[in-house]
């Protein structure tokens, strides 16, 4: 094949454009739609559009039976699954059910503890996405004495 100087230049430019299309950073954009969803099912679907959820004892959720102060509810999400890609904690009856999501990259153990807000007594759902695209979850009812969503 004969290459004119112009043709070669064009190809070169096309090649470098393709390189620029590859994301520079692995960082995810804040999942605005999922965080703004007001229904649990909707939030899960927006976070993992194609996943079928499966209940599993390989997802651990530590949360109190009774939370006296809904403004500060300590929870731990953990998993024994070997190929965890991301994890998320939902509170079904919160104005925005998705509280937090963790994307794991390198050397992060799939276990996180944090403090979340709960407006009222609700189911708390811990969900784990594996690298093969499956999502496993476990849930626990937490009774809230004083709600903590402010207002």
């Amino acid at each position, binding site marked *: 094949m004969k290459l004119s100087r112009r043709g070669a230049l064009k190809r070169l430019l096309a090649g470098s454009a393709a390189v620029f299309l590859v994301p520079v950073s692995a960082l995810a954009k*804040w999942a605005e739609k999922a965080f703004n969803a007001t229904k649990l099912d909707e939030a899960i679907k927006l976070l993992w559009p194609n996943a079928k959820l499966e209940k599993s004892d390989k997802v651990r959720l530590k949360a109190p039976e009774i939370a006296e102060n809904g*403004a500060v509810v300590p929870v731990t999400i953990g998993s024994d699954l070997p190929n965890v890609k991301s994890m998320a904690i939902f509170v079904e009856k919160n*104005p*925005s059910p998705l*509280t937090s999501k963790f994307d794991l990259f*390198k050397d*992060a153990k799939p276990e996180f503890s944090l403090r979340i807000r709960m407006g009222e007594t609700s189911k708390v759902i811990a969900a784990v996405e594996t690298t093969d695209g499956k999502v496993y979850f476990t849930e626990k009812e937490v009774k809230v004495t004083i709600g903590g969503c402010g207002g």
Partner: protein
Amino acid sequence: MGMKVKVKLAGDQAKVKLLIRHPMETGRRKDDSGKIIPAKYIQTLTCHANDELCFESQFGTGVSKDPFLSFTLLNRKAGDKLKFKWVDSTGDSDEKEVVIK
């Protein structure tokens, strides 16, 4: 606002406790005069070890005021450099670096 980090090395696992001073305003709360307090909450928090991304967390309004996070980083040793950075819904951010002892 500020960040406090505690790291304890146990074998090759670094157990990290992170406390961030931040109001985590939901945008649903009212002040004493009945005016809505505008939303201001942390949306992303990244953790790097020796400049490699370990995890990124995303928060919504359901995370408590002054977020506290504890987690474990694998394959760590003394001298490793950990870096944490958060960005909130108003674009404010803060970062902190610590070296594992």
